[in-house]
């Protein structure tokens, strides 16, 4: 089946799903209190956007700050650790172990120290995003072909030039991959902290909507955040593709 056919299949199946859902909800096959019909969800979009947009902006701002910190630390440390073999061999087992731990366990402590305020959410974002960035950057730097470094050194490149003109461009695909994953993780960290601590933001808003059984608005809000996230990630992907056209 060609691309048009595939697209038609996608649209058709999603439409069928939406229709079935609408019918099931309207005919009370499922409790409409919990599962509102799609039309109700769409109808509440207006209210949601009005109410949620400032909250979403709040959350996204915290995410941006946390993400920037995590990427700065992750790339900086990653390049350092990745290029010094002993350092890498000594620290990486711990980094990998920390990466596989549920970082959510640390969130209560962050809230305890920083209070029920934005910095806690930002730190939550940093915590979640830092590790994938670090791990991927270390891997990317480690895998830079040694012959490229040898050649540049033989041409008289200084240490700084080696990093700037060889190591980082060569590791760039891995760095970008880490940054892409890190973005979603940063958002998770911020939302999770907001939900846990009741910090003002999108996470808290969504929890409120859930606890007040405002299903239509909750689903609309969920859709809103999802769309934002998908767009952000797809943009990063497109950037990645463009920058990596030499591969």
């Amino acid at each position, binding site marked *: 089946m060609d691309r048009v056919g595939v697209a038609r299949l996608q649209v058709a199946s999603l439409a069928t799903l939406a229709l079935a859902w609408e019918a099931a909800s309207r005919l009370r096959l499922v409790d409409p209190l919990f599962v509102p019909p799609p039309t109700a969800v769409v109808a509440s979009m207006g209210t949601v956007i009005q109410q949620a947009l400032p909250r979403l902006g709040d959350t996204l701002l915290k995410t941006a700050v946390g993400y920037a910190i995590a990427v700065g630390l992750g790339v900086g440390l990653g390049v350092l650790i990745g290029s010094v073999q002993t350092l890498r061999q000594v620290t990486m087992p711990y980094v990998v172990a920390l990466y596989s731990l549920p970082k959510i366990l640390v969130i209560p402590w962050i809230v305890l120290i920083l209070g029920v305020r934005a910095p806690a959410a930002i730190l939550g974002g940093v915590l979640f995003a830092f590790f994938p960035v670090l791990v991927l950057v270390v891997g990317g730097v480690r895998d830079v072909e040694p012959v490229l470094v040898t*050649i540049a050194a*033989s041409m*008289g490149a*200084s240490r700084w*030039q080696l990093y700037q003109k060889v190591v980082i461009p*060569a590791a760039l695909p891995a760095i970008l991959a880490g940054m892409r994953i890190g973005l979603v993780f940063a958002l998770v960290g911020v939302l999770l902290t907001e939900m846990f601590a009741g910090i003002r933001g999108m996470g808290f808003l969504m929890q409120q909507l859930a606890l007040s059984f405002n299903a239509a608005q909750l689903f609309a809000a969920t859709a809103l955040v999802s769309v934002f996230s998908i767009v952000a990630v797809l943009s990063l992907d497109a950037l990645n593709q463009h920058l990596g056209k030499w591969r």
Partner: protein
Amino acid sequence: MTAEHIVVRDVRKTYQTATGPVSAVEGVSLTVHAQEFLTILGPSGCGKSTVLAMIGGLVPPDGGTIVVNGTAARRPDPKSVAMVFQDPGLFPWRTALHNVWFGPELQGTARSAREEAARRLLESVGLKGFESKYPRELSGGMRQRVAIARALALGSPILLMDEPFGALDEQTRILMGEWLGGIRLQARKTILFVTHSIQEAIALSDRIVVMTARPGRVKDVVSVSLPYPRDLNTPDAVALRARLWSQIREESLRAMAQEQA
């Protein structure tokens, strides 16, 4: 009296491996004259690449001295020496043009000057029109030509080449050898060439240094006085080939036995 460009005296190199120290090079001495094409010929593992790396300042010798263009070779000196390896090592994220101007870029040369020089070099290696191609879009032979252009861009009088055509198929190899011979006369460079191919050595060199199997020592130094362009089917060439092969064969067998050990 031609000036001596490279003087290697009694160098040694020992590597520490997991199974103990291994002597790679033991007491190698040789001299390369200005604008001479000298080939180091030897079986695999005989230390010829190590000698080249020491001359290029990439590896410090454990004993002996190396003087390149008047100064001791302790670190890479792009003003005197440019290196080309078997792996062209082109930066995959840079176009051919940007690869060629890498050396001048490191040295802070102005962009317009670098660009003009790089274009001229690419044209001289026969790759005019390929300036914006990425390495993955080029064949093996083309990549190696870009690598050579990149080395030439440094403007250094000496070129060290470590089996540059080793990864190419036979036909390309022979053609690249012919091309290098032409470039060499044009560019007036001193070339120190490492290979295990007798055919290449005879086709390109003024003198050939034959090395023993590990630990590498100089077994023989042979002058090649065949006229250019080199025809490898003349009686002189055939005799030379036979002589070199008998020496190499002995060392190759020894090298093979070392690998099994």
